[in-house]
């Protein structure tokens, strides 16, 4: 183990489950060496409602992961979700200063600062400033526009912000275990980064992560996140609907959902019934399959409709050529891809982790934690690379001679 090796914890505090993955990062490679899971407590719709319960559950998962890894976490990448997260778009344009119309670093910095300079309401804090591609005289520039020639430089930022108290609650849960939160990553960005390929993102793709209490989505266009959002509805609502509709306890409803729930109706026979437990024990009873499918499919259809409505004009089948990718625990519901395809009018499929992810981590419920690690590490690598390019030793020496 070299001196640069660090152990990064990816923590997803979900409504139904808390997942912790530990990655051993050497500066070049990332290896996942530990995993911890725990049923979530004290978390409601992705937000910490009971600090003590949420802390205990999270710390238990962290300890489990550290035991499996045999190492201590150095710092944490924490996923962030919840209905308090909102986003807005703001853009700015500058006229290129140079007489030869060549864009320099100053132009880029100025236009970026202008585009981000939007005041937030009191009590809100920025989680992400996601830059959309530059435009030079209306022409799309996927990369850095520096040294290109043009008269006008445009850029827009999708700013995700959330309630400061809610963000602090999540951070303090991790700090309660004396761990530093190094990166706060939107859950939709983490899972979307994991289940979509760069080509899909370039062509346009909508990634929807349906969790237990929330549904996070991110729409990619031109290779970059275009719009993100959170809907405070998830798999637990399906369970709740079944519980009310069929007069069941939460546990029984959850069991029925997992065994017989569908995102579409395929049962024609109204008399077709399914057993609650199937063991014919006392208390075991039958329920109409059609009723189960009607309840779950209606809720899923509604959920996807809400997502589509939230996307508004940002989404259109023409700008989302790669279709919809579904992930998260509720994405395992049968027939959900077909329903999504019908709702959005584009092809839809279940997201899969890249092939180099080991088999025991390929379940959709791990996509967010995996994405946290890879997204966070890439962001970290970019941050450490940039200053070196700008202020390396050679440049310092050159500047020294230039001054003298």
């Amino acid at each position, binding site marked *: 183990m070299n001196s640069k090796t660090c152990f990064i914890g990816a923590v997803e505090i979900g409504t139904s489950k808390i997942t912790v993955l530990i990655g051993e990062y050497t500066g070049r490679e990332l290896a996942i060496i530990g995993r911890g899971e725990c049923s979530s407590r004290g978390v409601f719709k992705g937000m910490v409602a009971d600090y003590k319960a949420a802390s205990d559950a999270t710390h238990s998962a962290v300890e489990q992961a550290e035991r499996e890894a045999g190492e201590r976490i150095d710092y944490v990448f924490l996923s962030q979700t919840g209905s308090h997260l909102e986003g807005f778009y703001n853009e700015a344009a500058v006229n290129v200063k140079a007489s030869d119309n060549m864009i320099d670093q100053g132009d880029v910095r100025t236009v970026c600062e202008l585009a981000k300079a939007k005041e937030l309401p009191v009590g809100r804090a920025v989680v*992400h*400033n*996601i*830059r959309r591609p530059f435009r030079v005289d209306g022409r799309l520039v996927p990369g850095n526009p520096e040294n290109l020639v043009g008269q006008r430089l445009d850029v827009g930022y999708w700013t995700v912000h959330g309630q400061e108290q809610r963000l602090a609650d999540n951070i303090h849960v991790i*700090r309660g275990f004396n761990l530093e939160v190094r990166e706060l990553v939107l859950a939709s960005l983490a899972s979307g980064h994991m289940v979509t390929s*760069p080509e899909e*993102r370039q062509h346009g793709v909508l990634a929807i992560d349906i969790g237990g209490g929330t549904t996070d989505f991110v729409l*990619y266009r031109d290779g970059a996140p275009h719009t993100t959002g959170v809907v405070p509805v998830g798999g637990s609502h399906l369970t709740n609907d079944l519980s009310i509709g069929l007069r069941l306890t939460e546990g029984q409803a959850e069991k029925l959902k997992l065994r017989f729930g569908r995102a579409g109706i395929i049962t024609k026979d109204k008399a077709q019934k399914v057993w609650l437990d199937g063991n014919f024990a006392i208390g075991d009873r039958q329920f109409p399959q059609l009723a189960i499918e009607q309840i779950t499919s209606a809720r899923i259809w509604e959920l996807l409709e809400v997502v589509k409505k939230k996307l508004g004009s940002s989404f259109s089948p023409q700008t989302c050529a790669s279709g919809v990718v579904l992930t998260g625990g509720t994405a395992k519901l049968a027939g959900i891809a077909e329903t999504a395809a019908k709702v959005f009018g584009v092809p839809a499929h279940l997201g899969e982790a890249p092939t180099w992810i080991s088999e025991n981590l390929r379940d959709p419920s791990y996509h967010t934690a995996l994405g946290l690690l890879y997204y966070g590490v890439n962001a970290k690598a*970019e941050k450490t690379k940039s200053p070196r390019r700008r202020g390396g030793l050679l440049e310092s020496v050159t500047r020294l001679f230039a001054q003298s």
Partner: protein
Amino acid sequence: MSPDNTNVPSTRSWRDISQPVKSRAMSRGGRVRLVLAAARSLAFGLLVAGVAWGCWTVFEALQHDGQPKSAAAKTGPLKTPELVRSHDGVLDNAWLVRTLRLPAGISLIELDLANLRERLLADRQVLTAGLTRHFPDRLTVQITERMPIARVRVKESGEERDFLVAGDGVVYLGSGYDVGILRTLPWLDGLRLARDGTGFRASVDLDPVARLLVAAQYSAPHLYRTWQTVSLARLVLDRELEVTNGQGVTVVFNAKGEFFPQLARLDFVLERRDRLQMAGTMRIDLSLGREVPFTIEPSPAVEAKSVAARAPTPPATLTFQLRTKREL
């Protein structure tokens, strides 16, 4: 999204949220980690401090002409060495200063103690010597001295010189002794000397002589005071010592036996002689155990002789047998 599209927010960001939490908001595991982290920080701090101290020490040492500045090097010039002698010793501080011959202004650390010890032991009066440094500027010297049991006159290069003889056979000049005390020491006659370094050493074992003289000195001091010569002429062959006093009495001691009974018999014989008022040179042989033959040569009173060494008196012609004490 690719990470290069994300810039650090310029407005209030989640990074502005204070992360530390109070101890009560931490779980037990968190508190344990906190303590461990603090311990690690402390250990690291100590390590850094240790390294810094080490660097500073090396730097300080280099500042002083490239030589480490020890506590000893910080000392000033040495004070006069102190002599710690055994209770019966006669050597004094002046002798010590003379013998050590220390250069002025020398510091304690510069002393070569082994060499100084050699210098002290070169004086054959010194039996053992120990030197101890007491920083910053004191040197103490512990010595034990040889005690003289007799005197001997040695003719060397045609010149006669008087030496003292210690019980271990070492012959030395001696210094610091009271002249009056030295005059009470008997002379040794017939002693063969051998060269020993720069001095002399008795070639025979002087242990019987030492035992006799010590016994006489402490058991019969009135006899010892009159003894002038102890002859070793017959020591090797007959294991006999011949003592002559200043009153013309020659006594033969058995060197193999105990001296205390022999001295008692001598005292008895001399007392009887005085009581019987028998005058003349006398020879008493104590080497035969309970039988003490003695001869008396009737002659005028023996004149007192000088303290100078002289040959033993020749034996008398008359012989008496001292059978028992009762008969006498």
